[in-house]
């Protein structure tokens, strides 16, 4: 039903119906925010990434053709934008990245509970992953995109997508074990 609803929403959006844009945003915002948060080195950039992706999508009203899942499409757009932002941050200097990561960590709730501690460890482990592995892990676990869809949208084979996911997950496992956490 969700996919059917998306198709109707896209059709209405193409007709210039701003109510459809509002619904699309409200429906997919949480998922996109999570994908952006998990992929960005600096989470203060989440709003910018979401802004760029959603506005870019809105600008295609009238000519957007939905092939497959809208959530998958928007998630990939967020991943693309996050990748660009991460690259530009890297260009500005590794120290800045470290500072941004530190700042965002300090700005969050203190790591008093095990859960948040684990999240911090995972975040650190994710930050160490090559971008393409990190992306597949996030899109699959957070965006809930099947490997088949990730492979199609990234123009890679499904085996490549699954390999990247396995390698990524293995590195996170190693990182967790390194700090004494065992999943």
């Amino acid at each position, binding site marked *: 039903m969700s996919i059917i609803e998306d198709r109707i929403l896209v059709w*209405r959006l193409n*007709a210039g119906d701003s109510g459809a844009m509002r619904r699309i*945003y409200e429906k997919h915002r949480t998922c996109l925010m999570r994908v952006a948060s998990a992929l960005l080195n600096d989470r203060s950039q989440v*709003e910018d990434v979401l802004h760029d992706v959603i506005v870019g999508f809105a600008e295609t009203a009238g000519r957007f053709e939905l092939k497959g899942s809208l959530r998958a499409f928007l998630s990939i757009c967020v991943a693309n934008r996050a990748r660009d932002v991460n690259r530009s941050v890297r260009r500005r200097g590794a120290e800045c990245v470290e500072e941004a990561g530190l700042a965002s960590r300090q700005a969050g709730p203190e790591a008093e509970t095990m859960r948040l501690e684990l999240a911090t460890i995972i975040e650190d482990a994710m930050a160490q992953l090559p971008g393409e592995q990190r992306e597949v892990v996030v899109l699959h*676990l957070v965006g809930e995109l099947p490997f088949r869809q990730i492979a199609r949208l990234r123009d890679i084979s499904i085996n490549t997508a699954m390999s990247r996911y396995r390698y990524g997950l293995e590195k996170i496992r190693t990182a967790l074990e390194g700090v004494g956490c065992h*999943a």
Partner: protein
Amino acid sequence: MHELSEMERTVKNGLLQLEAPWDAAADARVLDAALAAVRVAKPRPALRSGIARWAAAAACAVVLVVAIAHRTARPVWALEPVIEAMGKYKACNLTMIDQTGVAYDLWAKAEPSGELSSELTMRGGNGSAIWVREGRTYYYDPRSSTVEVDDAKTAGFSPWLGPELMKMIAKANDARTAYATDPATGRDLVVMTGNLATAAGPISWSIEFDKESKLPVAFKQWANLKRSGAPALSILRIVYYQEAPKGALTVDVPANAIYVPKPIILPEANLALLDRNPNQGVPADGLTREQAAREILERVYRAAIEGDLPAIRRLCPLTASWSDELLRMVILHEEEGKRVAAVVSIGAIVREGSNRLGTFVVAPVRLRSRDGRLWDEKQIVQFRSTGGRESCVVYGPYGMLSEVK
């Protein structure tokens, strides 16, 4: 998604804990920017043309139904009961959908004479609306809050869904008739198909009649001669009324809507037919547009008065493929007593436009029919340059014929 392992669940839960700095203000900023982008984005051309397409479909209900009818010598299915069944209904409500999926609700009233529609209101599921009042047609686009106005009746039914229409159907010899049963209701249907090149472009259609009541109940129209592809317009349901319910034709348009003249766009498929033969039309070299338009309109109405069908075909290239019988029916109105007896006046040009062939103009004409009634009509005259010569042809009417009260 496959079933997640414990490791995957741990990582997923960890990732979901990552919270971005976010608040309602951030939501508002992103959403406002997106909504602004939608407002300035170019709407899908297919949809934008939806209204125009429907309008064309409605306007050429004339030809459409005429077309169904043209050339039939002996219809397999007797139409007299249909004529009887439909004669008493002076209002109708149609539920229709265009090829982009927009649904429309249409109400129309017949003129007291019962010959054609008078007022009409059509509301689209996308917020659009079309209405006809006092000889003008209004097209409301909610995206731009603009109402485009045609100074003519460019949407409606002529003939009305009544006896004259059915007589025309009875004359169509290229129409196909088939019989079917609606499995849902068990009702027997009669399905008639046909096609025609019209002023709104090439069309083909399929009309379903309820065999028992003899009333048309559904209709599909394609923007080609072969009924191929998705229909441009599907009328899913027609309900007939002796009188339109009070308020049925009411239109609600925001008070701040902007009213602008509606541009006249001649379909490309028809333009291609207008510049093929330099011998069609009349030379316009050395004449002003006013003079040339008057000259060709005088000639075409003279041909109509004299029943000179080859001359009509030469002056109006779109009718070149029409049969004699169709020309007599649509142009000469032979059977209705409305055949042109005299041209009372040809007025000054009221509108001008241009397309790839050159300039076109709209000129009003007042006619007297053989039964003594007066009629107003607007004709489009297209100028073109073929073989190094400037000439003009009659494109066809701008809107419907209207009786002068």
